[in-house]
């Protein structure tokens, strides 16, 4: 981690309270450009709330954060323009064709017709979906849908892409392919902020943070975390930390 690397996400004591309940409790971290940042935690640990604050959907109760250099309190519009998002629920329109989905999402990000045309051709070729471009998305296998959803999420060339459990319910082969796509995106300079339930996927991340009860209890490379907790896998690291949790699901 070079000192001169650009920080695309910074969070400092970022907090979100709902009444008496503190969903996110003063978390602090930084994410560098092109990094694959794993954001782990049990259900109810506060991951989703944190992502919502970072993507401009929810205003923090306290603390500071910037995303792509923009302030999460005042510059949510600019933040939204600089990020891509793919949620755990499937996020394309089933009753639109592959091409229509691409065109719609590119359209709402204000991409030009020429840009959409050129990049759609490239994308369809990459995903080997040229034959299926005019088929409804609901007719595609789940793995293809997920890969297409990811491609659509980064179609407008965002600085950061938030992936909220992107590989839920997908078979291991497709997960491998999906992670290949994530690596390619990271290499092209897109920062990837990913939450996952699969601990083997945590091993693929450059750095991993683990949230417990609204706080970040651990943050380091997978290798260092395993050393620190003296275990052989990220799964064991996670179990050691999650055992301390007091919040119910």
């Amino acid at each position: 981690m070079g000192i001169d690397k650009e920080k695309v996400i910074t969070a400092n004591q970022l907090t979100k309270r709902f009444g008496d309940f503190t969903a996110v409790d003063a978390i602090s971290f930084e994410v560098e450009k092109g990094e694959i940042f794993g954001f782990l935690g049990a259900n109810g640990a506060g991951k989703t709330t944190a992502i919502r604050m970072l993507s401009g959907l929810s205003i923090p109760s306290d603390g500071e954060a910037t995303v792509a250099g923009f302030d999460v309190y005042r510059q949510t519009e600019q933040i939204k323009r600089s990020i891509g998002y793919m949620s755990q629920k499937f996020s394309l329109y089933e009753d639109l064709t592959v091409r229509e989905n691409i065109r719609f999402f590119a359209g709402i990000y204000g991409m030009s017709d020429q840009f959409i045309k050129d990049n759609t051709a490239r994308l369809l070729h990459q995903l080997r979906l040229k034959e299926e471009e005019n088929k409804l998305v609901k007719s595609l296998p789940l793995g293809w849908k997920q890969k297409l959803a990811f491609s659509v999420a980064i179609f407008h060339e965002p600085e950061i892409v938030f992936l909220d459990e992107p590989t839920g319910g997908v078979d291991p082969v497709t997960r491998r392919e999906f992670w290949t796509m994530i690596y390619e995106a990271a290499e092209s300079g897109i920062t990837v902020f990913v939450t996952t339930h699969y601990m083997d996927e945590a091993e693929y991340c450059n750095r991993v943070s683990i949230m417990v009860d609204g706080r970040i209890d651990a943050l380091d490379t997978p290798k260092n975390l395993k050393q620190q907790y003296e275990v052989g896998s990220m799964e064991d690291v996670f179990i050691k930390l999650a055992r301390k949790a007091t919040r119910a699901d």
Partner: protein
Amino acid sequence: MKQFISFVRKEFYHIFRDPRTMFILLGMPVILVVIFGFALTNEVKNADIAVFDQSKDEATSSLIAELQASRYFNIEKRLRSYQEVEEEFKKGNIKMAVVLPPNFGSDLLHLHNAQVQLIADASDPNVANTLTNYAAAVILDFQDRITDGRNLPYTITTQFRMLYNPQLKGAYSFVPGVMAMVLMLVCTMMTAITIVREKETGTMEVLLVSPVQPMKIVTAKAVPYLLLSLINIATILMLSYFVLDVPINGSLTLLVLQSILFTVTSLALGLLISAITDSQQTAMFISLTGMFLPALMLSGFMFPIENMPTILQLLSHLVPAKWYYIIVRSVMIKGVGMEAVWKETLILSGMLLFFLFMSIKKFKIRLA
């Protein structure tokens, strides 16, 4: 603007690719007009009746001719005795009998008062009621004619006048009602469902994370339904004008403008429902039981509000469809202008602003 067009185009894809939506949007209005116009109407045409004329004078024969000439009756049989009246009813040959007493003509001329007896088969009370009303109207017409210009003191004991609907056409009152129902169905229910569907499938999250402002998202969702509603308004008006012979007595422009006002109000209501619900089922349930049924029951179109208990009368004030129904009935059938419906227009506009304000507020709360 480009974002907006992308959005509207996407909404049209959703609509055109879902047969159920297409059916509700375009098939339902036609079906409702046909059902209410032909099947559910109280109107009776060419009902078989019998006449028992005991007087057989000039007055009775011209009255009978008048009855025959009207499109409502077909004089199936001339009777010669009271006994026959009952026989014909029992055979089911006739629906009503007109009994003209002896000396009808001379009574009318000298006593200035003659009597007609109408006997109807009340096993179907609605038909019986309608038939006797029609006959009474024809007889009154006849009386008016013979007194006309001669200022003779013929006693007309029943004051019987049919305002705006001299032929007692059923279609007159239901067309405004069907318009209210269709617009309510299309705008409120379909808009609520389409927005809630995006919440269910998870695409709403993706849209909210995009740079499109939330209000733009919901407006773009409403636009196709507004356009399709305009088509529906045109369809219903044309069907009622050309097929059901309902006249448009007032200004067409005013009628269309008022319909747009009601459409937008219904859309705002749909947005409000979508803001407070998370599942399509709930949205549909609220739209149907909370909006559609009151529109049907409390707008005055099926059941007269004046006859309802006070509490229901008060409740009916909260139903937007009631005000729209009054406006359309006034403009379309009575032929009055804005000066007669400004109060209702104001109430509808107030409701529109209230729904918009509430849905924006609810929408913002959910985002925080």
